[in-house]
């Protein structure tokens, strides 16, 4: 079983979501050489190595991310490398590039998997994902090769220490693959980040800690409390649809079926009742803490710790205790 992972990178190296996915695929294949990570960019050698092989494609047109172009380049790489399976993180990037690449390759694609496995009989890749708002988990198989899937960040552990011993292979593709077809990226997200302040919902899907608020906060100022708590724990602020519809916070913060799906190590739901459509967006979180005045709210059953009480009383007490606990490290 040979894997190709569409890599996502910062200036200094791979993103955690890429590493955890590549290492999980290598583990599944039982061979660290069986999973290559694809680096698309304008520089021939990124200057760092991975624990698995790196395949680089270099072209000036790849300086800025454009989903259609990246999909055509990925499809061309698949044609050359002939992997058994193609994976990407279920980030905005992965979820835009992979469907287009799958359509070009006429391959099946499973979105937002939370686990991968090998078919014990046929040996193909099985793609495992929550369905119907997380109330069932479906195992999905593709009928054509390569099997393709996007995988939710944090589905696999990201090892803290790894050896950058992987090889680098430069792949040359025909020039016409890089034709942008009239699409121009006038401002990339990375540039925007440098130029303006990072939006406070940036990175919500991959955040380790998410502090979410709902109507139980009673007013917009409740989110100031949550922002302080999020800053203290290195997290991001999210919201239920109720809080978004009340106008207390922007749509981009919404977690749930018509918003974002998050899978942090710690999810704190403050004043959120836990409607089905919200629970679907945070079901795979690690530890869940709910703060709610209503002990019978559905969120309380979906939590590890359920604190019955008012957000305006409990959150300041938590902040005060955190202040005393000191900064980390």
């Amino acid at each position, binding site marked *: 079983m040979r894997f190709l992972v569409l890599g996502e990178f910062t200036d200094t190296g791979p993103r955690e979501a890429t590493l955890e996915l590549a290492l999980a695929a290598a583990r599944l294949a039982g061979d660290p050489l069986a999973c290559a990570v694809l680096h698309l960019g304008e520089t021939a050698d990124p200057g760092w190595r991975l624990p698995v092989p790196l395949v680089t494609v270099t072209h000036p047109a790849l300086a800025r991310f454009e989903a259609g172009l990246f999909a055509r380049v990925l499809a061309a790489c698949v044609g050359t490398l002939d992997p058994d399976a193609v994976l990407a993180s279920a980030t905005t990037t992965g979820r835009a590039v992979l469907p287009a690449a799958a359509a070009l390759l006429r391959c099946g*694609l499973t979105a937002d998997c939370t686990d991968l496995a090998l078919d014990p009989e046929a040996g193909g890749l099985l793609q495992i994902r929550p369905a119907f708002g997380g109330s069932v988990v479906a195992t999905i198989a593709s009928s054509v090769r390569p099997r393709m899937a996007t995988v939710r960040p944090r589905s696999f552990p990201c090892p803290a220490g790894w050896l950058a011993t992987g090889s680098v292979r430069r792949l040359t593709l025909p020039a016409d693959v890089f034709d942008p077809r009239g699409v121009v990226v006038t401002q990339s997200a990375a540039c925007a980040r440098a130029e303006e302040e990072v939006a406070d919902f940036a990175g919500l899907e991959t955040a380790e800690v998410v502090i979410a608020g709902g109507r139980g906060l009673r007013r917009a100022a409740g989110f100031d409390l949550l922002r302080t708590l999020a800053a203290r724990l290195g997290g991001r602020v999210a919201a239920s649809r109720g809080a978004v519809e009340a106008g207390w916070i922007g749509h981009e913060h919404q977690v749930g079926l018509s918003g974002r799906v998050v899978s942090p190590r710690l999810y704190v739901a403050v004043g959120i009742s836990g409607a089905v459509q919200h629970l679907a967006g945070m079901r795979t979180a690690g530890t869940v803490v709910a703060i709610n005045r209503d002990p019978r709210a559905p969120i309380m059953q979906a939590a590890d710790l359920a604190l019955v009480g008012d957000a305006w009383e409990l959150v300041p007490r938590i902040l005060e205790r955190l202040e005393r606990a000191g900064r980390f490290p």
Partner: protein
Amino acid sequence: MMRVAVLIKQVPDTDRVRMDETSGTLVRDGAGTVPNLLDLHALSALETWFPDPSALLVTAVSMGPASAETTLREALALGAREAVLLCDRAFAGADTWATAVTLGAALERLGPFDLVLCGEKATDGETGQVGPELAVLLGIPFATRVQEASFGDGRVLVTRQLEDGPEQVELPLPCLLTVTAAVAPLALPTLAGKRTARRAAVTRLDAAALRLDPTTVGLAGSLTRVVGLERPVLRRDTRVFPPGQSAAGVDAFLDACAHLGLIPGPSEEP
């Protein structure tokens, strides 16, 4: 006149589904169906982008059972001029690829369109794959998760939200855009719109009308297949702290943070 196709999916009403408390599964019976909200946001965005409705000819397209006609009538009430339902037993059980094949055949038959719009994802499948797949099949560029757009000179400049921040992309028309809820508030149907919607005809097209081989659509044409379904066990062992024990609750919260390495631990009461 600009021709726009808006794709609208009929989905279960997630506001009305209940959770079975013992099995943790969704109880869908009697929940009813609604148009996928993000698709309606796409339709609503047209009003913002093109203040003069006479400059547009909007066609709402849905693939689904006969009952999806209700969803298309909602689209007509919100300003769509035409409505087309792709309805055939052969379309049932389609994965995102087979759905894109069917929609692609329909848009080629009904078009050409200058712009194709849909929500970023549907609330039932939650894949967000049909838009990009369809764009590839139509041979047009696309952008996902669009929250702003301005049109001019045969091109559109869109702002889309990435994890790192906003990105701006300029695309030539025709193109396909998938939108988030931030693109425009949901429009409300006017009385005149509702009247028009009641009277308007909804065109129905089946596989034969689209010249689609039934083996290339629906379940038969799908490239992925569900081979197993499991009901996950609600495995959280909830510790409840009633109001009288909130000090212990705050302690437990700090212990959890320390356990996750977010703060120095273990928590100590000074």
